[in-house]
């Protein structure tokens, strides 16, 4: 099953504006994690939100989770040029010991922040 589909696929904003991207998934999850990836580089962990949490903050990041709608959003406030990257959500849907810790990634949202 496909999990963690982000939208929009691409987002272009000016510095100082907020960026919002969404993630939808299909099955019950234990947690959802957001990552950032600069072109050709590694995945940087941003935030984890558990299935019993509704909102979480970390610096300029705000993540929400709506398990009834099977969706999550990532908001970056007061964006900077350095926020230019691809952002991925990844779901941990492991329900049994047969699927320990497996993260399923979406295709990502490519964010470009122009000065």
């Amino acid at each position, binding site marked *: 099953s496909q999990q963690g589909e982000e939208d929009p696929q691409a987002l272009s904003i000016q510095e100082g504006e907020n960026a919002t991207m969404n993630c939808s998934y299909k099955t019950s999850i*234990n*947690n959802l*994690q957001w*990552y950032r990836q600069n072109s*050709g*580089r*590694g*995945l*940087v*962990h941003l935030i*984890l939100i558990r299935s019993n949490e509704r909102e979480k903050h970390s610096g300029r990041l705000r993540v929400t989770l709506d398990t009834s709608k099977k969706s999550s959003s990532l908001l970056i406030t007061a964006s900077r040029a350095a926020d230019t990257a691809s952002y*991925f959500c*990844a779901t*941990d849907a*492991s329900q049994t*010991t*047969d*699927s*320990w*810790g*497996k*993260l*399923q*990634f*979406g*295709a*990502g949202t490519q964010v470009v922040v122009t000065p």
Partner: protein
Amino acid sequence: EPEVTQTPSHQVTQMGQEVILRCVPISNHLYFYWYRQILGQKVEFLVSFYNNEISEKSEIFDDQFSVERPDGSNFTLKIRSTKLEDSAMYFCASSEWLRNEQFFGPGTRLTVL
């Protein structure tokens, strides 16, 4: 801040050759993972490893792949006979406990010619 490291950063090999990709997970982490990302595609799960054995593997992780924790710090992915379609970025990740944050290394770009 502790981080996952991977070597080499780039590996070029001929089809049919064996490659070993190396990872040093964060020292107090107990769960280890390999993922791969073919250029322009999604990050895909390959295998998870805990307590010196595989916990889960994907359908990609066939008999050509193996993982090992040869000592207390390294975690390796071996591809026995590489194919062109194995060309990808391979990421190692670790987590302190199950269902915690997974921290990724910078990746090894594998190019199979």
